[in-house]
C-alpha cells in the first residue's frame, strides 16, 4: 500500500469525474490498489489483499469492498452493477444478486453492492476510496481570534494609559507605554504565525503528501496532511491486525484446541495431540495484543492532531498572545504560545517527516500463511458418517507424537510447522516494522519532539514550565 504509484492514485480520483455527472452518495472503501491502471467503469479490477469494512453512513448507497486476488472463491470486490471478471466474462452484481459478494471461509457475510445517484438511478459507480472516518467540523480560524486578543490587550493598556493621567501616575504611564511595544511585538508574532502556517501548508506539507490531496482540493493545511497520513496508517494497521487475527491467530487457536475422545462401553480415552500448538498460539495472541497497542497509539496521535488544530491553536494561542501583552502574565502567555506552536506546527510536521522516514524503507506486505484448521463452517456431512477418525485439519489430536511432514517443512513436526510459519521473515519482520516502528516508535517520537520544543520556545516567549508530566503520559 505504501508503494502505490501516485499516477494510479491520481487516475482513480479522475474515474468518478470521468463518468459521473453528479454527486454520488458514495461511501465506497475499496483500497486504491483495487482499481487497476486505466480502469474504465466496466473494466475489472485488480485487487489488493486487504479487507475493508462496509461503508454505509446514510443508507442510500453501499459498497462492500472485501478484496482478494480473485472473484472466484475467497473474497472479492463487489463492482457496482456490472463488470468483467478476469476471464472476461460478464459478472452481474446488483441488489438482486447479493450472493456474488462475500467473504469465505471465515465469515460468509453477504453484502449487497449498490450504488445510487441522489436521484435514485443505479449506475456503475466508481470505487472511489472514501474515508472510513467522519471528517468532523472544520477547525475554527485562529487569525480573527488572535487579532481580537491582541486588540483586547491594546485596549486594556490604553485604559491604563488614560488612567495614568487621571491619577497622575508617571510610572503607570511608563509601564503602559512600554507594554504597548509588546502589543506591537504580538502583532508581529501573529503575522509570523500566519506566514508560518502558509509556509507549512503550501511548501512543506505538499512535499510529503501531495498525492494524498483529495479531488477538487488545491491545497490543504499541514495538519490535514498529517491527519490523512495518520488515518491511512491507522486503517492500514487495523486491516493488518484483523488479517493477522483471522488468518493466523484464530486458525492456530482452533488447531491447538483440537481434542480427541474415544469412548467405548465405559472406557474412555482423551487425546490432546495438538496441545503443543498452544506455544506458538500464545505467542501469536500476545503479538496481536501488542499490535492493538500500536493501533491505539496511532488513533491517539490522530486525536491529538485534531485537538491541536481544533483547540490548541485557535484557543491557547490567542489567550497566550493576550496574556503575553502584560508583564505580570508574560510567563504564562509565553508558555501557552509555545505549547500551541509546538502542537500546531512541530507535531504535524514531525508526523509528516517521520512518516517519510518510515515510507523510505521498502517493506512489503506481510505474507500470511494458509493454515488448514477446523472452522465452525466445517461441513460434517454424510461422508463423515462412515469415515474413520479422520480429522479435517493439518493436526491430528489422535497422533500424539510429533510426526515429520514431507512438505516444505520436511523434517519438522506439526508444532514446529506452526512455529516456522509464525517466524517466517516475510510475516514477522514485516509486521514488526509496520507495527513497532510505524505504530509505536514513530507516534512516541512525534510526541517527544513536540514536547521537547515547548521548553526552549517557552524560554523565548518568557518563561520556563516543567512539562515532564505530559512527557510521562506520552
Amino acid at each position: 500500500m505504501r508503494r502505490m504509484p501516485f499516477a494510479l492514485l491520481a487516475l482513480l480520483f479522475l474515474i468518478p469525474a470521468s463518468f459521473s455527472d453528479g454527486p454520488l452518495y458514495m461511501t465506497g472503501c475499496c483500497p486504491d490498489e483495487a482499481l487497476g491502471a486505466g480502469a474504465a467503469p466496466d473494466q475489472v479490477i485488480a485487487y489488493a489483499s486487504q479487507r475493508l469494512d462496509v461503508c454505509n453512513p446514510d443508507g442510500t448507497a453501499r459498497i462492500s469492498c472485501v478484496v482478494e486476488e480473485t472473484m472466484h472463491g475467497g473474497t472479492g470486490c463487489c463492482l457496482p452493477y456490472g463488470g468483467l471478471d478476469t476471464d472476461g466474462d460478464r459478472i452481474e452484481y446488483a441488489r438482486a444478486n447479493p450472493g456474488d459478494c462475500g467473504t469465505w471461509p471465515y465469515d460468509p457475510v453477504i453484502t449487497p453492492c449498490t450504488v445510487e445517484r441522489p436521484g435514485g438511478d443505479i449506475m456503475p459507480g466508481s470505487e472511489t476510496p472514501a474515508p472510513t472516518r467522519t471528517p468532523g467540523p472544520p477547525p475554527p480560524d485562529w487569525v480573527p481570534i488572535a487579532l481580537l486578543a491582541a486588540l483586547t490587550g491594546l485596549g486594556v493598556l490604553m485604559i491604563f494609559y488614560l488612567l495614568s493621567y487621571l491619577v497622575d501616575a508617571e510610572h503607570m504611564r511608563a509601564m503602559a507605554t512600554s507594554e504597548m511595544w509588546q502589543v506591537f511585538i504580538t502583532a508581529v508574532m501573529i503575522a509570523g504565525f500566519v506566514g508560518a502556517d502558509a509556509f507549512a501548508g503550501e511548501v512543506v506539507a505538499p512535499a510529503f503528501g501531495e498525492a494524498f490531496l483529495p479531488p477538487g482540493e488545491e491545497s490543504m493545511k499541514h495538519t490535514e496532511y498529517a491527519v490523512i497520513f495518520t488515518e491511512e496508517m491507522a486503517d492500514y494497521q487495523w486491516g493488518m491486525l484483523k488479517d493477522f487475527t483471522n488468518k493466523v491467530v484464530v486458525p492456530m487457536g482452533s488447531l491447538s484446541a483440537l481434542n480427541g475422545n474415544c469412548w467405548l462401553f465405559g472406557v474412555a480415552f482423551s487425546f490432546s495431540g495438538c496441545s503443543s500448538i498452544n506455544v506458538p498460539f500464545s505467542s501469536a495472541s500476545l503479538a496481536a495484543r501488542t499490535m492493538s497497542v500500536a493501533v491505539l497509539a496511532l488513533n491517539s496521535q490522530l486525536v491529538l492532531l485534531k485537538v491541536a488544530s481544533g483547540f490548541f491553536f485557535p484557543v491557547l494561542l490567542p489567550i497566550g498572545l493576550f496574556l503575553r501583552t502584560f508583564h505580570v502574565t508574560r510567563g504564562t502567555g509565553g508558555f501557552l504560545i509555545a505549547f500551541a506552536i509546538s502542537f500546531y506546527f512541530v507535531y504535524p510536521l514531525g508526523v509528516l517527516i517521520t512518516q517519510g522516514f518510515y515510507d523510505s524503507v521498502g517493506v512489503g506486505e506481510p505474507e500470511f500463511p494458509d493454515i488448514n484448521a477446523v472452522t465452525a463452517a466445517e461441513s460434517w456431512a454424510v461422508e463423515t458418517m462412515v469415515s474413520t477418525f479422520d480429522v479435517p485439519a493439518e493436526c491430528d489430536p489422535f497422533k500424539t507424537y510429533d510426526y515429520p511432514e514431507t512438505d516444505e517443512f520436511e523434517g519438522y513436526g506439526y508444532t514446529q510447522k506452526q512455529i516456522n510459519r509464525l517466524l517466517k521473515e516475510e510475516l514477522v519482520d514485516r509486521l514488526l516494522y509496520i507495527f513497532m516502528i510505524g505504530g509505536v516508535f514513530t507516534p512516541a517520537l512525534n510526541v517527544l519532539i513536540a514536547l521537547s520544543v515547548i521548553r526552549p520556545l517557552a524560554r523565548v516567549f518568557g518563561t520556563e514550565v516543567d512539562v515532564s508530566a505530559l512527557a510521562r503520559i506520552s
Partner: protein
Amino acid sequence: MVCPDIGWVYSLSLLSLGVTAMVVGLAYALGQVLNNPQFNVWAKTEIYQVFVSFFIVILVLFVHDSFCSFRYSDLAGLAGGGQEYAHPEIGADDNMMDSAGKYLANVGHFIKTEMRAARALYGVAEEASRYSRTPCMPAITFCLYGTSGYSVRPYQGLSSWVQVLGTSLYTDTASYLTVLIQMALLAFISGGGIMAYLPFAIIIRSLPMMRQFGGGLLAICIALFIIYPALLVAESLFWNPYNMLGDAGWGTLVDAADGISRGFQYVPPLEAGGALALAMTLASALSVVDIAAAIGVAASAGIVSLAVMIHGLTDVWTLSELEKAVGISMQAASISFLSATFLFSLNIIAIGASARELGRLLGQEVDLSRLMQVI
C-alpha cells in the same frame, strides 16, 4: 451545577478587612506609644496592602459572579458556533459553571458507553473463544457409544481480542475515573467552600513575613475558581469527542454497549441451513435407518447450535460485526484517553503555572500608592 450563594464570602471579607485594619491600626498606635518607627512604617505599608487584598478578593468574587451570568450561547457565538452536546444537552442559557459541568458529564457519558461496549465485546469474544463442537464419529453410530470423535474450539483465537479489549477497558477505567475526579473537583469548586480561603488570605497577606503565603492562597483560589472552569468551557466550545468518532461510529458503539446479551453466530446460516436441508432430505425416506441417519447428520452438523442460532438469528454478533465494533471501540478508547487524561493534565499544568505566576505577583507589595492617595 448551581452557582452558589457567596454573599457570606463578601461579608466575611469585609469582616477580615475590618479586623486586619484594626490590627494595623493597633500596631500604628503602639508604634506611636513606644516611639518605634518600625511599627509605624510597617503599619503604613500594610494598610495599603490590606485594601489591595480586599480589592483583589472583590474582583475575584465579581468575576465568579459573572461566570454565573455569561450564557453559553454568547460564548459559542464568539467561538464560531461551539459544539453540540446531547448527553446532557448544554443549553443556550446555561452559565459557565453549568456548561463546564455538563461538558464533563458528556465526556463521562462517552467514556462510560465505551466501557460498556468494551465489556460487552469482551464477553462476546470470551464466549466465542470457548465455543466447542464435538461431533460423534463416525456419525453412523449416532453417539450411542459415547461422544467419540474430536472436539474443536474454532474461535479460540478470539481470545486475542479478549486481551485487546482488556487493554482498552483498563485505559477506559483510568479515563473514567479521571473524569469523575474532575466532576468532583468542579462540584467542590462551584460549591463555594474554597472561597473561605479568600477572607483568610486578606488577613494573612498583611501579617509579617506571611505576604507570600497569603498571595499564594489568593493565587490558588483564582486558579481553581476562575481559570479551571474557564478552561473547561473553552474545551467544550472547541472539542467534542462525539464528533471525533462520528455518528456511524457512535451508533456502533451504543449498539455494542446495549448488546451485552447478544450471542455469537457460531454456525453460519448457510452451513446450518445446508446441514438441516440435508437432514430433511435424508428424513424424507421413511425407513427407520434413514431417519436415524438424518438425526445423526443433523447432530453432526450441530443441530443444537443451529437451534440456538435460529432463535437469535437476527440478533447475534457475526465475526465481521464483532471486528468492526472492536475497531470502533479502540478508536473510542483513544478518544477517551485524550479527552479525559491528556486534556486534564494540560488543565492541571495550566492551573499550576497560573497559580505560580499569580502567587509571585500577589506575594509582592502592589505599588498603587498614587491611586490610593487619590481614593
